[in-house]
């Protein structure tokens, strides 16, 4: 029966290869995508419009900020949905879990190393988040690194140890707070007279120019994204590693 599944695969492949012959030259600066007014506007005017050196951050958080808001919402949804799917379903424990018996005591070397490393990771997460305007990075990456530090705690000790620092209700609250920060900045600019997410209007409450208002609002937005991603990444791990029971080590 397996060969039947090859038919659609081969069909799609032929279709895609057929189209690939029509693509512009590899790396051609004159290709429509690279030459379009939209792309050139992003490259030429990001500095003028927002004063952010990293164009990707500027496009992500400002020009296409609405997309990014929903991207944050998607992360939020994933967290909520995983909680909803697994909550209360993990009481019947059976199957091969027992074959991976975890040692009762966390390892001394591991815990001490983690104790040393976690603050550095978290500091790096803040750096990635805050420095996203001028170097690769931003809310997502920073948030994921931050979430990873909590996962590391859960791996080195056990889940309870990490949940003391970041309980699940707190996770959801922080994730919701992230969206509130993001949407709140949008609302603020809406109430100040612009469109939703028109950060330039924030100049009326910030003592800076329109461009710098965009610059600073983007930082605020990235912090919101970082909140949501941090907590949801940890919540994902906590739920999946314990089948929603939220107890015990991996």
């Amino acid at each position, binding site marked *: 029966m397996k060969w039947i599944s090859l038919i659609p695969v081969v069909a799609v492949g032929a279709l895609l290869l057929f189209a690939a012959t029509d*693509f512009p030259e590899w790396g051609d600066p004159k290709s429509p995508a690279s030459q379009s007014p939209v792309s050139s506007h992003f490259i030429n005017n990001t500095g003028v419009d927002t004063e952010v050196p990293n164009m990707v951050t500027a496009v992500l958080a400002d*020009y296409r900020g609405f997309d990014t808001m929903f991207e944050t919402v998607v992360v939020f949804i994933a967290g909520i949905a995983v909680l909803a799917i697994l909550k209360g379903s993990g009481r019947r424990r059976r199957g091969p879990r027992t074959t991976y018996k975890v040692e009762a005591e966390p390892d001394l070397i591991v815990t001490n190393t983690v104790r040393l490393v976690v603050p550095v990771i978290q500091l790096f997460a803040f750096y990635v988040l805050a420095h996203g305007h001028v170097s690769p990075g931003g809310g997502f990456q920073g948030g994921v690194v931050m979430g990873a530090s909590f996962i590391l705690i859960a791996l080195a000790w056990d889940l309870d140890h990490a949940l003391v620092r970041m309980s699940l209700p707190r996770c959801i609250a922080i994730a919701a707070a992230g969206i509130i920060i993001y949407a709140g900045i949008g609302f603020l600019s809406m109430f100040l007279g612009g469109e939703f997410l028109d950060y330039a209007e924030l100049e009326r409450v910030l003592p800076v120019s329109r461009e710098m208002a965009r610059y600073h609002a983007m930082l605020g937005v990235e912090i919101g994204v970082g909140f949501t991603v941090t907590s949801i990444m940890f919540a994902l791990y906590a739920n999946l590693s314990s089948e929603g029971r939220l107890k015990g080590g991996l």
Partner: protein
Amino acid sequence: MENAIAWVLLFPLIGSVACALLGMANRKLCYPISIISMAGATWAAVETLFQAVACPSAEVSYIFGGWVLDLFPRGVGIEFRADLLGALIALVVVGVGLIVSMYAKLPVEKETPGKEALYYPLFLLQITGLAGIALTGDAFNLYVLIEVAALTGYGMIAIGSNRAAAATFNYLILGTIGASLYLLGVGYLYIKTGTLNMVGIQEVIAANNLHDSPAMQVAFVLIGLGILIKMAFFPFHAWLPNAYSNAPTTTSCLLAPLVTKVMIYVMIRMVLTVFGVEFSFESTLWSEFMPWLVVIAIVCAAVMALAQREIKKMLAYLIVAEVGYMVGGVWIYNFYGLIGSIFHIISDACMTLCLFLATGIILRACKTTHFDGLRGLFSKMPLTMIGFFVGGFSIIGLPPTCGFFSKWYLITGGMVAERWEYMVVLMFSTMVMVVLFFRLIERIYLAVSESGQNLGKGHGDLGLTKEQTKFEEAPLSMLIPLLIAASIVMIIGVYNQEVVNQIERFLEPFNLPRGTGH
């Protein structure tokens, strides 16, 4: 209020966050919050629709982030465009959302106990995603919103039983293939046109004459294929029946009327706005072979519906058949066909909502949705059954209901375009639906005498006691939304001309053929 179009999405978004936060403290707060935010969204959608109708160009454009068109090239910011079609669909989405949110209280408490603070945020975000799909004017933003709607859908279905989780997994795999194919198609559009704005894409296609470009043709196929998978068109329908029939009541009430219809809207949007009429119908062969696929789809789905013995499963296959109607209405390439298609999106959303709301009540009262469990229900809950049959008659297409008028336009379109196969299959499926619903009528109305006496022979062993046929209507929080939905089905039927006028006004600029297409 100029920001009304943004509020359509922002109300449910705030509502969902508020539900998640306040629901942790007190889960009783979720239900009122969801109703309030849906009411707000409905108001905003009505406002948007009125703005679009009042505007001479019949559309409202709103660019997020203040990247206005005079100063920046098109496509720099993300644009929301509510033309008449988008505004109508958005209104349908939030309207259905409002009705279901009123209905949700008891089923959610019963079926997902203790999870209200998780369920309502998903519920509201689902509506956010779907309403956003209807309004957005940016091809990539559409992908993000499709994923918002899809992910919340997975969560809302799988929150129920283990069986639902298994069904959701199939849905997830197929849904991801569909959405990814769409994303790939958008990538092909981008590589050839360099923009993501829907109007911008069409401008570039027209300006650079990309009609015969292989990459554009493949982009069309990929996007079309992705959307067909997402809308459960017949060969790709495998995810739908199991997912909808095992989902919690509220979930199926929300998803069944909306998800497939919104995806059909996306197809119409792609055909008319993004690729343009000339590209979609003349440069590709889709209008040649799609009606035939539609014929196969409708016949198979109708036969499968006939084979079901459970209302929920039967309705799920009916949805698949209805998807066939609407897809056919688009691809017969005719003015009236498209009117019928768009009108059928609206009326099908209303009547499917009606049927699923009633099914939820039946499930609550009888603990089963099997046909044999319905005997004598009319004497038990007459109002619910009236609601159920208003929806049923509309699906069959009996005159005072809106289903009649939309089917009328579809058939007219098929006749004018001389696609006889499509017409015949519409007739055929109408016959099948008559059989389906009169089979149910026989069970619900006729099998028990008024006194609740067992009619005995000829109807199997009924064995109903008086107690079982006692008048016991559904609780008001479930009955009122059903009756509202039923009356909307009738109202749209009565005032069908108003709706059709707006659809005609939307379709006027596209110069669709009013006779045969080729």
